[in-house]
């Protein structure tokens, strides 16, 4: 399994790492039992994503997709941000190995959660709810896994 150069760049030098202390919205998805957890904090300015930071526990693809999604989302309207698809994320990274495609869901779900969190905090209707894969109790991030076993 080989990652693209861009994946390796975002993994090795992830952008926007950290936590915004006085964030307007926080999204956290995944859990350590699955092996990946992501937390996104956002500042919202005029319904646009002003600042955005992430923290991720996860594999190379999880970190790279987290990093790129923060870059993609910065400056977008909230509606635009929640519309980012996992395929767009993968594409932006120059592709992901098939076994790692599920990782991009982590990043888009985290972003959606943060946006909805902001909206709910402000008494508005959440706009991403229903499209968040991790909300589905049957969601199995590794269902598409196609990896090999130990040697």
């Amino acid at each position: 399994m080989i990652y693209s150069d861009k994946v390796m760049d975002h993994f090795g030098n992830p952008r926007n790492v950290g936590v915004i202390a006085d964030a307007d919205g926080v999204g956290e998805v995944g859990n350590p039992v699955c092996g990946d957890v992501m937390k996104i904090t956002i500042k919202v300015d005029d319904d646009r994503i002003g600042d955005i930071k992430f923290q991720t526990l996860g594999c190379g693809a999880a970190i790279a997709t987290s990093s790129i999604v923060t870059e993609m989302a910065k400056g977008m309207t909230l509606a635009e941000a929640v519309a980012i698809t996992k395929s767009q994320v993968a594409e932006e990274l120059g592709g992901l190995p098939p076994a790692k495609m599920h990782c991009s869901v982590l990043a888009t779900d985290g972003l959606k959660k943060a946006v909805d969190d902001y909206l709910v905090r402000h008494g508005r209707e959440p706009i991403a709810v229903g499209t968040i894969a991790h909300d589905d109790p049957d969601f199995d991030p590794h269902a598409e896994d196609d990896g090999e076993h130990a040697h």
Partner: protein
Amino acid sequence: MTERSVYLDYAATTPADQRVVDAMLPYLTEHYGNANSMYRLGRDASRALEDARERVARAIGAARPDEVIFTSCGTESDNTAIIGLATAAGRTSGHIIVSAFEHHAVLEPAWRLGKQGFEVTELPPRPDGTVHPDDLAAALRDDTVLVSVMHGNNEIGTVQPIAELATLAHERGALLHTDAAQTLGKIDFDVAALGVDAASFSGHKIYAPKGTGALYLKGGTRMTPYLIGGGQESKRRSGTQNVAGAVAFATALELMDAERPAEGPRLAALRDRLVDGLLGRIEYAQLNAADAPVRLPHIANFVIPGVEGEAMLLHLDAAGIAVSTGSACSSGSLKPSHVLLSIGCPVEFAHGSLRVSLGRYTTEADVDYLLETLVPVVDRLRQMNPLYEKMVAGLAGAAD
């Protein structure tokens, strides 16, 4: 990023030793005959093959050379042993016991048999990473036909009490197969002392080329052959014999055995340096199966809480270091290692495992370089982990 290159994944594969390559080369281009042909070139090939068989037989303490069957890899040896012994003499049902932390080359055929009329028990090892004889005794049944317990575990390096397990299996009329891919050449290995009926070996774990392997099958043991056709290897493994590969395997094994008296302690000392250094420098790190009564000299497996294995591996790789994680080579997958789970390692820690395996070309400087490099990598990843503080609180709490 760096010119330095430090290979610490000898349990995954080894380079072919130049002496092994030199020994095999003449059989590729010069003595290239088919070992089944009667003419001189064929007889020469056959002699080289039988000589290699004798050398392997001697090295593993087999009673007769024809107890050694050359195969193409550890996987083929395992598949052949599990399916071939279970289905010997046309048997289509019965009870099989495999330890739960076997390599998939044993588990998969056992599972396949499980779908085809056999009953399969997966015997869990104890938390010390060892299959306990009492547990086997309890699992054995009158209809148990085959027990397969690996000699040395490829992820955590624990060594199983095979001789005791074999005695128990035999008392109940079952055969015992052991996957010795990780132990052959690395610690004493003697089929007579272990009392096994069959054992699997892989060439590329002992500095022979990939694509070589062998299966020990005790004389008189019935086995349905797996690769079938021309009837080579006394009808137990068809396919034109890889004479060069057999010569390489025998040569590699003899080198392992010759060098072990010095190499074993050297590796064990390096491993201890690694274990002490790592546990001393990385907070909360633990050695897996630390309480194992016997362990291989060259494998150490750690959990490093708060870190995901692949990310750690990639950062180390960027510094020129080759190690493995999780299910060792399940690198394409986030599924946590079935081996670590089988010894009770919590799933969230299993995702952060690190296997370091040492070999012929490993130096103290290599180990030190890994330790130096690992510390900032772990720090960095933990800082990126949104749950790390919570986790530490939990670990601290648990420690109270």
